[in-house]
């Protein structure tokens, strides 16, 4: 798995490519810890290029969300492939995570929140 970071406004966008499994989930948790340590707590995950996810990857996402909430930050996700969306739906995690269809919609929600 590969993670590429682009900062867009106040939001750190992580582009994840490959498998979000045991090893990939560990990599994601480490990356988010680094971001939180450097006071970046608005984090968006673009999952467009995630070609596989399993329960280990889901567990890593839940862990990541807990860490971000603890830091009073915000985690959003977008561009889920249909099979990834199904996994979120059957586990009901789609009710827990902020999931947007596109990255642009997610980033607009950060902008809207900043202007309130």
């Amino acid at each position, binding site marked *: 798995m590969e993670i590429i970071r682009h900062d867009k406004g106040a939001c750190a966008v992580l582009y994840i490519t490959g498998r979000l499994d045991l090893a990939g989930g560990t990599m994601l948790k480490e990356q988010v810890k680094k971001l939180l340590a450097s006071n970046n707590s608005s984090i968006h995950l673009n999952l467009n290029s995630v070609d596989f996810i399993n329960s*280990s990857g889901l567990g890593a996402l839940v862990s990541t969300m807990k860490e971000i909430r603890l830091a009073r930050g915000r985690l959003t996700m977008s561009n889920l492939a249909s099979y990834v969306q199904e996994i979120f739906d059957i586990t009901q995690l789609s009710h827990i995570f902020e999931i947007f269809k596109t990255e642009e919609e997610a980033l607009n929600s950060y902008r809207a929140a900043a202007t309130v």
Partner: protein
Amino acid sequence: MAEYNFSYASRLESEDQMLDDLQSVLELHEIVGGRAWRFSLVVSEAFTNALIHGNASDPERLVSLNIQVNESEIIADIADEGVCGLDRISHRSSSDDLMAESGRGIGFMERYADRVEYRESQRGGLVVSLSVRLTEATKTSQF
């Protein structure tokens, strides 16, 4: 019938190697799309359970994977080198906590495999046998 055997040290990075090997077998037999995705998912769940719970992430212990492909189904047997394998399955904890960080793997296996069976190896390790049908209608999923 074609048969393939692999074994892996119980290390974090072994899962990616296993999924690469699995992908090669699936491509060789032209198993693609939803069936390939479901088979990879359920095998990965059994594999990580074997690695973490069965072998306690001890790199000296192996997880073995046997794959059989015939005209009607693809079958994977995933075996660990732990002890009291069946007890581990019968005493597994389940949680309805949406925020749980683990505990979803067996649910995925039972949802996405057409058949799941558990047995113990002669040494007491857990063997999980999973199959996905290749010719008939399979379990309900959009894939």
